[in-house]
């Protein structure tokens, strides 16, 4: 059943909420500055509740099923996070309140800063960035500012492996730096010779996702860091895949200079149908002074009777402000809750079981789907959604057919270096039973691809709508509801 839009449901004169009459004497409105009409919909509360309840049932979600979505870390979002983030003591504080009145917020943020530094092995941190991509922008601007502060202004080149997320080159370009793509070698590592060949005195740094988007931990990570550092560059870590490293290795210990974290991947804050995320950035000691403003700090040390006084500081060579206020605070509360409930052992277990789950699926599927880089993987792996003896079937068809089996498709057509890529990341919160059901579906689909390819080509069959015409959408560009009176 198609759900009408809120404008189609609207009925003139209806209202969902009443507000009190003014309790103050009336002041005339400013003539000449008023709008003529306010074309908002008119609905009752029940209209609105049913509408959004109906819409919600047209969504796939983690609460409803399994998302083997590579590089997205769609782990379970614990319900307690939603409770703690909604404590009125947090939600009812204004971002510009005097620090004396928000010591709880600041203490929580300070502690989270300390924990994230400890988990990743870095000296400094900002909680400001709103998402991973903004973390990248922050990181690249820090790299730029670092080189400029040393008068080393010709360092404008940033190396990005060909397996990287699109945000890496986009963030680099946005920071006014040049992108140079680096090839991968036959084992899915960075090609060291290619790296050495481009390391010169114009090198600003390297952006490295490790484990990379093939799900592989680069076997030469220490060499890579060394080569870049010797050429005077900095190493940026894309923390999209940090889930596999919790308690396993601290990127800071292996020589990385900067890294962003995705709290909405590794630290269980929900994806929200596209956000909000949160992308804190951690940095090594030599970059602490370049962090964006403000950072949470201790202004007066505490003692046995008094807790410390927390407040804000601006680092001396700060790149400036990257958004308003104090980061995505509500996401920080969720991540704090999650870390506090795991401790060191619990975090290591997250990484271990996410890697166990990925390797289990890999082991069971690799004889049915071609796996171009067949190594022990980390938290994810990439298979090809293509068989020579089923030429009409593509990765997209497999992805769509999975919906009929009640699974979200894996990430497909990414990374770009694998043709017809299907990138599978199960996360640690999925049970063996769920993985087995998924594997069975993948095996069945491989069979269907050879016996009844039209089943895949026409998929999905059981969803609220079938495959949608994306060309029509881009051509006609209907981007908002037609108002009933103008339709």
């Amino acid at each position, binding site marked *: 059943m198609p759900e009408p839009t809120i404008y189609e449901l609207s009925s003139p004169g209806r209202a969902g909420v009443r507000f009190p009459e003014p309790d103050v004497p009336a002041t005339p409105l400013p003539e000449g500055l008023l709008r003529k009409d306010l074309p908002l919909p008119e609905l009752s509360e029940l209209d*609105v509740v049913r509408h959004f309840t109906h819409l919600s049932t047209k969504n796939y979600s983690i609460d409803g099923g399994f998302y083997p979505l590579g590089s997205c870390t769609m782990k379970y979002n614990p319900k307690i996070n939603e409770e*703690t983030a909604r404590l009125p*003591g947090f939600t009812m504080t204004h971002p*510009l309140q005097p620090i004396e009145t928000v010591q709880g917020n600041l203490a929580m943020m300070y502690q989270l800063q300390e924990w994230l530094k400890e988990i990743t092995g870095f000296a400094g941190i900002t909680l400001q960035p709103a998402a991973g991509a903004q973390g990248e922008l922050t990181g690249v601007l820090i790299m730029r500012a670092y080189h400029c502060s040393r008068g080393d202004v010709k360092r404008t080149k940033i190396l990005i492996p060909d397996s990287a997320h699109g945000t890496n080159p986009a963030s680099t370009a946005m920071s*006014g730096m040049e992108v140079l793509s680096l090839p991968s070698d036959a084992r899915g590592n960075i090609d060291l010779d290619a790296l050495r060949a481009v390391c010169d005195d114009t090198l600003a740094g390297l952006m490295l996702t490790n484990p990379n988007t093939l799900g592989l931990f680069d076997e030469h990570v220490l060499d890579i860091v060394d080569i870049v550092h010797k050429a005077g560059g900095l190493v940026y870590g894309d923390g999209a895949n940090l889930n596999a490293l919790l308690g396993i290795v601290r990127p800071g210990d292996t020589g990385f200079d900067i890294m962003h974290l995705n709290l909405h991947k590794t630290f269980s804050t929900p994806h929200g149908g596209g956000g909000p995320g949160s992308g804190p950035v951690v940095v090594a000691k030599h970059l602490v002074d370049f962090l964006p403003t403000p950072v949470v700090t201790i202004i007066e040390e505490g003692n046995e009777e008094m807790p410390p006084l927390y407040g804000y500081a601006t680092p001396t060579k700060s790149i400036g402000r990257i958004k308003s206020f104090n980061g995505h605070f509500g996401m920080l509360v969720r991540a704090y809750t999650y870390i506090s409930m795991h401790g*060191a052992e619990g975090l290591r277990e997250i990484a271990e079981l996410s890697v166990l789950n990925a390797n289990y699926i890999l082991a069971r599927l690799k004889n049915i789907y071609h796996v171009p880089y067949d190594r*022990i993987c980390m938290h994810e792996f990439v298979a090809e959604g293509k068989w020579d003896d089923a030429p009409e079937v593509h990765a997209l068809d497999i992805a769509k057919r999975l919906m009929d089996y009640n699974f979200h498709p894996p990430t497909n057509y990414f990374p770009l270096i694998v043709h017809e890529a299907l990138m599978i990341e199960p996360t640690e919160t999925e049970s063996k039973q769920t993985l087995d059901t998924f594997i069975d579906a993948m095996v069945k689909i491989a069979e269907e691809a050879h016996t009844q390819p039209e089943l895949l080509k026409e998929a999905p069959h059981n969803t609220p709508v079938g495959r949608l015409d994306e060309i029509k959408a881009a051509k006609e560009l209907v981007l908002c509801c037609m108002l009933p009176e103008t339709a």
Partner: protein
Amino acid sequence: MFTPHTKTEREEMLKTIGVRSLEDLFQDVPAGHRFPKLDLPPALTEMEALAELQDISGANETVRDLACFLGAGAYNHYTPAAVDMLLRRGEFYTAYTPYQPEISQGTLQSIFEYQSLIVELTGMEAANASHYDGATATAESVVMAYHNFRGKRKKVVMSPAVNPQYRATVRTYTQGYEDLILVGDGPQADLNAGPESLTPLIDDQTSLVIVQYPDFFGRIFDYTSLINSAHQVGALVAVVINPTALGLLKTPGEMGADIVVGEGQPLGIPLSYGGPYLGIFATRKEYVRKVAGRIVGETADKEGRRGYVLTLTAREQHIRREKATSNICTNVGLMALAATMYMSLVGKQGFRQVANLCYQKAHYAAEKIAKIPGYSLCSDTPFFHEFMVCCPRPVEEINAHLLDDGILGGYDLSADYPTLKNHMLIAVTEMNRREEIDALCESLEEVSHA
């Protein structure tokens, strides 16, 4: 807890993989750095974690404990109960980005509705699915205008009465655009002047003019003639809005704006110490291909059933990589959903009522404060729900006194504007009862004698 594996299952799985232990899965990690000992406190149970966070949050004083007159970019409004009840549906908040439209119609249709509401509210023609907040939406407007002129127009004119945090964010975002110059908001800028003072700065090298409506000081100016002058030399104009004010005020679309950005927090999003909030971004149809971020469009499936998809994706980073003009990927979808629910519930009548309550109460407060000896309104320009008060003493001292009386005073403008010593920015919303306003006035009067 959150990992379901039994001991037996782990062993079965390891056997299938062909390794003996979990440690064996990590041979690629350099041995010298493998399995660090993390110095973290022992794991808490759920009941302990909740108790701890209750304690931590209890150390704050909230806008429920205090009468709040603080705004400056984040506002204390009433959110109908249904918004959060609906937002808590796992089908919404645990869903991924709607890249698979067949199983994401709930998210996609609600974004489409959000775009529609923003278009109607602002009087523009198209809106995107959100930016992170008002500050980053403003920065993205600069980036869009820069690329619109292919980097050939190198000047951006920014009113000093645009939120200082937004202006700072614009500066950070444009660090890499070395030839771009930002003018208009330097230390010499006349803060009392209206928009006409910007006109002489606008020329054929200007890509964008940015003004705020109501401005950071709360004032309402009609920007029609400024926009006309900018258009005469081919420059674009971005208007930073407060969505609540548009319940009453003439739309920026009607004034001729090319881009409308703003902070959507007043639309049903909790203050939550500054985030997550909602970056609004709307524009004219002719610029829609230059907009950053996600856009949802209507289409149909093979059977003609109406459906929605992310469209014009060739603009975005996952396709264009370094040629994309913005790197935005994850936005604040759930906050846009909250705003859609809020606007649907409050609706045409309620939205006007909220705006009118803010306006009426703010004007009552302003008139009463202006009568207190030592205090005056710093401007006679019309205002909406926020206004500047010239105080007899430094704002910090006054606010300390107000706090003792259980009042969260206004914003100290001297923090951003050295010339505005003793200037307080006071915000009043529908949440402020008349008694609270009267108490504010009493407390202000006391402190002027103290």
